[in-house]
């Protein structure tokens, strides 16, 4: 049944088949809708349960499990778990750390990666194809393959500190903010996304700007970047998510409580007596920033994720 056969089918049959088909789908459509609605329940129930439980005392969470009440904010509803979270763990500190790390990673990442992509896509220079090929080659390697050698390696890295009007040379990046930021600034995929977006911006704009005496950096800043809004949004979203959600790396590289991000904070609840209501409150608390941003920018989010499939 290939498309090329359509021309051979006699016209009346085709029309008849089409009208017959058009009459039937009423039921099918309703069935499809039912499936879609059931799937909403499937994807939403754990998160509804999480949020609702965060409002209840522990004994009521367990008492409500066997009925529909598990998903309803009924009974002894309060924000006690939320206030309790801040007493149990340094939640405020974790939140501030994560916000700072995420914002810095996204902002510097945008600059570093777009600059590189600009030079690779719009300028002609020796070695650019080699650099591009090397960057593309890194795309398939997941972080987990080199996380442990990286852990060893960052412990050997030097750093310069300025104290009492003197520079001091130190070694070891473990247990710092920078170890949570630097490894994630340059990103091959971000460079690739900027690169392909820049390719679609006409090069005649650069020529015109150069005729007017603009330097390369000026062209980057005033010509190309203002036109790259969608690419900036995509890269920002695709950097924001893993930065906020990062777990494996800070778990290993950061020991001090006051430097740890939100996801590592989850493990604090599992050590003492398990307070499920508070865990649900904490989980809700660290999910809300992402969820709000997602719901506000859902089209951008979904487009960004879809664009990650383009490279296939």
């Amino acid at each position, binding site marked *: *049944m*290939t*498309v090329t056969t359509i021309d051979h089918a006699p016209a009346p049959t085709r029309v008849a*088949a*089409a009208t017959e088909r058009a009459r039937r789908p009423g039921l099918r459509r309703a069935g*499809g809708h039912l499936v*879609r609605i059931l799937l909403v329940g499937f*994807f939403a129930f*754990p*998160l509804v349960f*999480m949020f609702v439980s965060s409002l209840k005392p522990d004994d009521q969470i*367990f008492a409500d*499990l066997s009925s529909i009440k598990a998903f309803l904010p009924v009974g002894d509803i309060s924000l006690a778990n939320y206030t309790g979270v801040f007493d149990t763990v340094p939640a405020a500190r974790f939140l501030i750390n994560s916000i700072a790390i995420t914002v810095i990673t996204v902002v510097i990442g945008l600059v*570093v990666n777009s*600059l*590189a992509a*600009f*030079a*690779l896509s719009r*300028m*002609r220079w020796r070695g*650019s194809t080699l650099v591009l090929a*090397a960057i593309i080659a890194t795309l*398939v*390697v*997941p972080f*987990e*393959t*080199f996380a*442990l*050698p*990286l*852990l060893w*390696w960052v*412990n050997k890295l030097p750093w310069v500190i300025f104290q009492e009007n003197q520079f001091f040379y130190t070694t070891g990046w473990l247990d710092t903010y920078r170890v949570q930021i*630097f*490894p994630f600034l*340059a990103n*091959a995929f971000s*460079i690739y996304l900027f690169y392909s977006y820049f390719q679609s911006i006409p090069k005649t704009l650069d020529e015109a700007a150069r*005729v007017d*005496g603009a330097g*390369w*950096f000026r062209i*980057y800043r005033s010509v190309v970047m203002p036109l790259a809004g969608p690419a900036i949004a995509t890269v920002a979203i695709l950097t924001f998510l893993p930065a906020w*959600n990062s777990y494996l790396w800070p778990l290993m590289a950061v020991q001090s409580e006051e430097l740890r991000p939100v*996801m590592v904070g*989850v493990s604090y609840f*599992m050590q003492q007596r398990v307070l499920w209501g508070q865990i*649900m409150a904490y*989980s809700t608390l*660290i*999910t809300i920033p*992402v*969820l709000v941003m*997602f719901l506000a920018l859902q089209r951008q989010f979904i487009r960004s*994720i*879809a664009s990650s*499939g383009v490279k*296939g």
Partner: protein
Amino acid sequence: MAVTQEMPPRSGLRTDTAVRSRRGGWGHETLMGSLMVTPAVLLLIVFFFIPVALCFALAFTNARLISPEPARIIGFENFSRLFGDPLFWKSLRNTFYFAVVVVPLQSGFALLLALLVNARIRGVNFFRTLYFVPVVTSIVVVSILWRFMYQPDGLVNSMLQALSFNVIQGTDWLNNPAAAMPAIMFMSIWQAVGFHMVIWLSGLQTIPGELYEAAELDGAGKWQQFRYVTWPGLKATRTFILVTITIAALSLFAQINIMTQGGPLDATSTMVFQAVRVGYGQQETAYASTISLVFFVLVLAVSLVQRYLTRERG
């Protein structure tokens, strides 16, 4: 502004470029270009290329995470230890088990969802958004939440009971060696399937609508339309999805670390989990690098298969 003054008025674009090149613009361009890639390239060298190289190098040493003594080269000792380590084989088997089940189920389910939300109906965006919500929820949050739900007296078991009218009794999911991995698989698919739904969806939307109209006029049923229009149109998407899910499945870590710590009876220990336990918990960087190296080779094999598949068809 100097440039414009030197230009003859009304000169075409081509001449402008020529003037620029002749005046050494090429050298300047090379300098500026290299300068602009320098931050990214330096960062990639320090935080990607060197660690990857170290993964190979350290596997042949006795390096420890924190040690006063410098690492010594010890040849293939780590490898003979690795291949004689029953936990490694078990972790490798568990990792494959997870991948073999999750890859087809998740990609198939994602495609089904994509077809469901590709219809031109009102409110389709609402469904897309909701199916996608678990994806933006951190896997850490998801794992802790499902750990709670999987408890013997937890939500999953009480729902199973209620929905089956007390026929199904459930089990202590995460403490039952036979049930722990399937429980984690189910949760992982629940969390990540929306991601691949969106990628399938973008693939579906590249298929021109006229093809469906033509097939329908020709009397093709829904299944035939799928088989002869949709499926061939998703070639590139298919390979991409298979590779990304496979690599993500092989990287299984957070769920294990939060939900089971590799237990019960090492039934859920995976390669990355073992590498972290050895390299971070026991500080044996060298041995962890050896495990990572095997993992790296696996990932490379998967992406080479992808190259091969896309090249053959491309």
